[in-house]
């Protein structure tokens, strides 16, 4: 009985999507909705198929920018989190500015970034970095601070110096919260890459979305939306999988 309930629950998750798609398709056909208002899923799919090479390339470019930006953001975030935990002074000097910088919407200075760093990968990765590093820095700091005085004392009693305490205790202990932040950062980095593409790029999902909008090609626009969504979900899933592999000892929600 319980198994059956679980089966239905699991099946329920997977069945929702096809059901929604079928309803969508039927609604568009029955009510004869104009394709420039809402195209049917079948129309979107055939558009995607027709433009598959260009779209795949766009996904590849945006994914590359996002991952590059996220990787750099993770590195910068972890390093600044460590620096803050080591030197209270640095935290007091820089953290308020980090917080303030996050309050300035990226839209406000996206144009400057493109002017300075060109309309290639670098500017997008930079914006992705800018958006993703902050939660990672804050969570690294918070994770390091979860280590108790007693645990540090135990390592000191073995003669451990600051470096051993960091590498053997503080960083591993901070890993669960760092990963939680990377998961958040992955979504932010994707937004950063696409916003960067809006300000100036020749390829990528942002370009697909923007040109479809200008040319009023609605199915193309929907294709872009769906691919962007899938890219976001895939990134999130990959980070979540890495998280459960690497920091398995702490089940994070």
């Amino acid at each position, binding site marked *: 009985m319980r198994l059956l309930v679980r089966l239905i629950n699991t099946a329920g998750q997977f069945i929702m999507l096809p059901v929604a798609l079928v309803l969508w398709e039927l609604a568009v056909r029955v009510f004869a909705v104009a394709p420039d208002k809402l195209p049917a899923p079948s129309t979107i799919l055939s558009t995607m198929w027709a433009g598959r090479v260009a779209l795949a390339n766009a996904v590849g470019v945006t994914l590359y920018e996002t991952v590059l930006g996220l990787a750099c953001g993770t590195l910068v975030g972890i390093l600044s989190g460590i620096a803050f935990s080591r030197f209270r002074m640095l935290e007091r000097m820089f953290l308020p500015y980090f917080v303030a910088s996050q309050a300035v919407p990226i839209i406000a200075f996206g144009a400057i970034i493109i002017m300075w760093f060109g309309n290639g990968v670098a500017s997008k990765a930079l914006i992705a970095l800018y958006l993703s590093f902050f939660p990672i820095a804050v969570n690294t700091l918070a994770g390091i601070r979860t280590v108790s005085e007693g645990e540090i004392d*135990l*390592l000191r*009693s073995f003669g451990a110096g600051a470096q051993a305490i960091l590498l*053997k205790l503080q960083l591993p202990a901070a890993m669960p919260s760092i990963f939680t932040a990377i998961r958040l950062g992955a979504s932010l980095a994707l937004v950063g890459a696409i916003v960067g593409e809006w300000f100036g790029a020749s390829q990528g999902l942002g370009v697909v979305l923007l040109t479809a909008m200008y040319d009023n090609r609605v199915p193309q626009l929907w294709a872009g939306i769906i691919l962007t969504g899938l890219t976001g979900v895939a990134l999130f899933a990959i980070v979540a999988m890495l998280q459960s592999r690497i920091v398995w*000892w*702490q089940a994070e929600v």
Partner: protein
Amino acid sequence: MATSKIRARNISKHYHVGARTIHTLDNVNLDVGTGEFVTLVGPSGCGKSTLFNILVGLVAPEKDGELFIDGHPQALDHLLGSVAFMPQRDMLMPWRTVLSNATLGAEIDGVPRRVARERALASLDRFGLRGFEAHYPGQLSGGMRQRVALMRTFMFDRDTMLLDEPFGALDALTRALMQRWLLELWETNKRTVLFITHDIDEAIYLGDRVLVMSARPGSIKFEAKVPLRHPRSPDVVTQPEFVALKRQLLAVIEDESLKAFAALNQPAAAGRTAI
């Protein structure tokens, strides 16, 4: 007694909290002979753990304190790493296996990982952990976790071990088993042990000598040799010598506990009379 393994003289410690000065330790004098198992009991809050932190080198005492190890004077701010210390909580790292938790101290001490692992593997039986070397702390019972912590302390190879209420959190049955097992381990290894507990039975059963600390500010108020031969069987607790010593210790400790309790409740009591 020949030269003591540990000889502490005039160890005092006070903290400043705002304008108030709290005296935690007051002129503690302590000798632990080489290979001796000394237990330390006292009311809670008497500064036992502070004394340990000082002996481990985590906290510096007041300037006039002196410490000798094997008769050699020690710089009190350079003690870290000279004794093996086991804190109250096991503090195992959840991301490390039993084996690599056990080798943590040795690893930090600079023992090559491979050597440390081999030594640990060879000791698994002694610590009752054979077959569990690849388990993680989250998969172990309280008693096993404590054995891993104790193994970590042993693997950090020092003549002297300071154990701070290692069995305090265990249930009575596990605790009794662990005491027997620790005694056997000690009888075969003969390390110098200083062991904090708040359990008088445990103090007598394990110790060659029992020290009683006074209420805060803590000092050594009473000491007694335990007139029981090794190896000790668990039913030693019913022997008249055991019972007599227990009675004696209970009287001293109750006295100190009452003092500690009174000190603790003073402000509250004053508040109550006001109502």
